[in-house]
């Protein structure tokens, strides 16, 4: 069965009409039973005209399905299946387990700024695909001999503040903090944020579509940045907010510079937030996109082939900067006290 198993034995054949009938019946049944995900798919289409057309086709099926209560099996089975899986998949969100496995002390016993394997500095990295692979891997590598630092990462590929349908950061981040609080009664000491690569898109509010860079879009986006920032600052005393790296592709590059400027405006003036522009860390001498850099006498690929994400050596440059900031903010203080 694990072979392609196409079966070379003689099989019954069918005329085109019967195959078409089979398809209509099979997919018809699947569509009626799966009207919920089908409608979700249609409403998630980015292009207005196509979305409108798709919804016009899907909606009658969805309402028929609802009238006949054929959507009940999908909802019930999906919910049952996901609850079964979610109990077992802490990593569904892309979390890395904390590197320090030591038991967590209660809040009452933790010293103010003395971090040790038993009282580690808890660091949370959050973001979109920029936080997915390379930065967490290099960060973990950098702290592998530092048991006094415990690291967790939550990244959601394709997520953006512009479109909460993919992942609603503002709604979910609060739950994440609550879960952490419930687990060990300890807040995160440091949050590192790296996101924005997917922000250059229209925002849909219940009332209207706000085209990217329009006045309404800027207002709404800044309001979302503020909400997100407020939740973060209320739950953590120190935040490093990494700027979006310079991008390769014309047009996209400029859109990212624009988004970056809004993030900077939204977060940089807050005392608990350190805004870290990465242009000169990961860019060329002018802060523009470069695929490679000479590091330690070797030419290294610092950006991935897509011209958007980091490659490992590039991520290491970012992590080195973070580590220097951490030394200054969390460990130098301890030594001087």
């Amino acid at each position: 069965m694990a072979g392609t198993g196409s079966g070379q034995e003689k099989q019954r054949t069918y005329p085109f009409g019967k195959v078409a009938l089979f398809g209509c019946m099979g997919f018809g049944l699947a569509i009626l039973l799966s009207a919920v995900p089908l409608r979700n798919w249609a409403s998630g289409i980015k292009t207005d005209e196509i979305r409108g057309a798709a919804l016009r086709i899907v909606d009658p099926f969805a309402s028929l399905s609802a009238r006949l209560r054929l959507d009940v099996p999908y909802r019930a089975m999906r919910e049952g299946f996901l609850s079964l899986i979610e109990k077992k998949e802490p990593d569904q969100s892309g979390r890395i387990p904390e590197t320090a496995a030591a038991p967590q002390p209660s809040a009452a016993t933790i010293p103010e700024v003395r971090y040790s394997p038993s009282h580690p500095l808890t660091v949370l990295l959050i973001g979109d695909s920029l936080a997915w692979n390379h930065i967490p891997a290099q960060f973990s590598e950098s702290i592998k001999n530092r048991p006094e630092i415990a690291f967790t990462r939550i990244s959601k590929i394709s997520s953006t503040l512009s479109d909460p349908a993919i992942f609603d950061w503002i709604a979910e981040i609060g739950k994440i903090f609550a879960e952490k609080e419930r687990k060990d009664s300890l807040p995160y000491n440091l949050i590192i944020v790296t996101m924005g690569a997917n922000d250059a898109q229209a925002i849909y509010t219940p009332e209207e579509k706000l085209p990217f860079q329009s006045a309404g879009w800027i207002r709404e986006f800044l309001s979302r940045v503020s909400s997100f920032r407020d939740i973060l600052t209320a739950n953590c005393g120190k935040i490093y907010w990494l700027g979006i790296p310079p991008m390769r592709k014309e047009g996209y590059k400029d859109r990212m510079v624009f988004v970056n400027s809004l993030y900077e405006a939204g977060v940089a003036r807050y005392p608990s937030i350190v805004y870290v522009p990465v242009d000169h860390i990961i860019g060329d001498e002018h802060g523009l996109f470069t695929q490679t850099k000479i590091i330690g006498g070797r030419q290294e690929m610092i950006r991935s082939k897509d011209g958007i994400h980091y490659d490992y050596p590039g991520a290491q440059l970012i992590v080195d900067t973070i580590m220097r900031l951490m030394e200054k903010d969390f460990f130098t203080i301890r030594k001087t006290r």
Partner: protein
Amino acid sequence: MLFPTIEFGIFFGVVFILSWSLVKWHTVHKIFLILASLFFYGYWDWRFSILLVASAVCNYFIARLIGRKNAHRPRLRTLFLVIGVAVNLGILGFFKYYNFLALNVNNVLLLFGFTRALPILNIILPLAISFFTFHALSYLIDVYNGKYPPSTSLPDILLYILFFPHLVAGPIVRAGYFLPQLERPPDPRSIEMSGAVLLIAFGLFKKIFIANYISGLIVDPVFENPAGFSSLECLLAVYGYAVQIFCDFSAYSEIAIGLARLLGYRFLDNFNNPYRAQSIQDFWRRWHISLSSWLRDYLYIPLGGSRKGKGRTYANLLITMFLGGLWHGAAWNFVIWGSLQGVGLVFERLVKERKPEAKAARPFLRKALSIFLTFHFVCLGWIFFRSPSASKAFEYIRSFGNIGKPSTLISPFVIFLIAIGLFIHFVPESFTSRIRAGFDALPLALKATLFGLTVFLMGVTAPVGVAPFIYFQF
């Protein structure tokens, strides 16, 4: 456009109806399938469709030149073949290997103090470039070897190279197998529906349910940061990846074969229970069969195969597998993976030559041990294949020593997925034949109901979003 998406379902529904409606007009039917394939490809990035068409047209004319009656001037035929191979490999080499080469050359130059370096170019790797290059090369070489005459129909060659079911990730279809199918239109009264539908359904199950979940639950997190996980998690993640890559890639092949069959065309099988292999050689006869037979026919045998003495045989094996590794990607981890396979094959031959034995005479325990050892050798290779770099692969191997770390990712569901991915290798063929025959015998309405319910259940259990197939990157 990915197979297990609603977009592709709509696309294929339209293509299916229109292609059979146009089948009476043979050339129009073929041109329609070419345009549909270009749409399928262009949905990702239309600019590379031009490259694809240009490459196919170029190969069509070169094959015509090779196949001209030049018996009195064989060198001319060879020259045309060399040009054809150079053009195809040149395109592949530029897009896939230039930056890898430039980076390594630059680092050698830097060692000697030269700061002027080869430029690193902003190259986007066209999807499917490796697969369409292999299709084109096999066509040119077969025409040169006189296996069949060059096609006089440009639409046939365009359809052979661009046909969307195999375009992006194979299977690699030989021109000698596919072009004769284009000589007459497929018969609309005789569609092998049951087999095709079962293949597609089983492929979707493997991709959506097994491969996607196993990758998110254990494989991706552990390969991303092996040092952070226990030795047991590292071990299960390798098993998990073995299951994931099989379920992902064989699913693609099965869906491709099923789709082609619904359109009236046949492809050969691409997998045959690979983890049931009793030796590395056996594994390569069962895994990605279209690639391993391609490497055998167009690389290993032309190098001399096993006809020129033991030493040359070993060298040919090493060269073939080294290049097979490099074909997968311009990175040292793929080079090591390919070389490891080559070394394994050579070692196996050495052992067999010293101690020949009849395979059929192996007792059950010997067979089980052979399967176990072969599987673990393959898994060792997968560590290099999956890791983002060679150094990360070695870090992974070191992480097997993480004894005592707590395990956070192991769950009954993960173990169930790994077990089912391995178990399906040992289901007897007679059982699957009975399933096929049983499904075939059902009334049409019942078949459609079962199919509809299967699609529904996949929707219920599907993870959010669909990860691309692993072999898209090659």
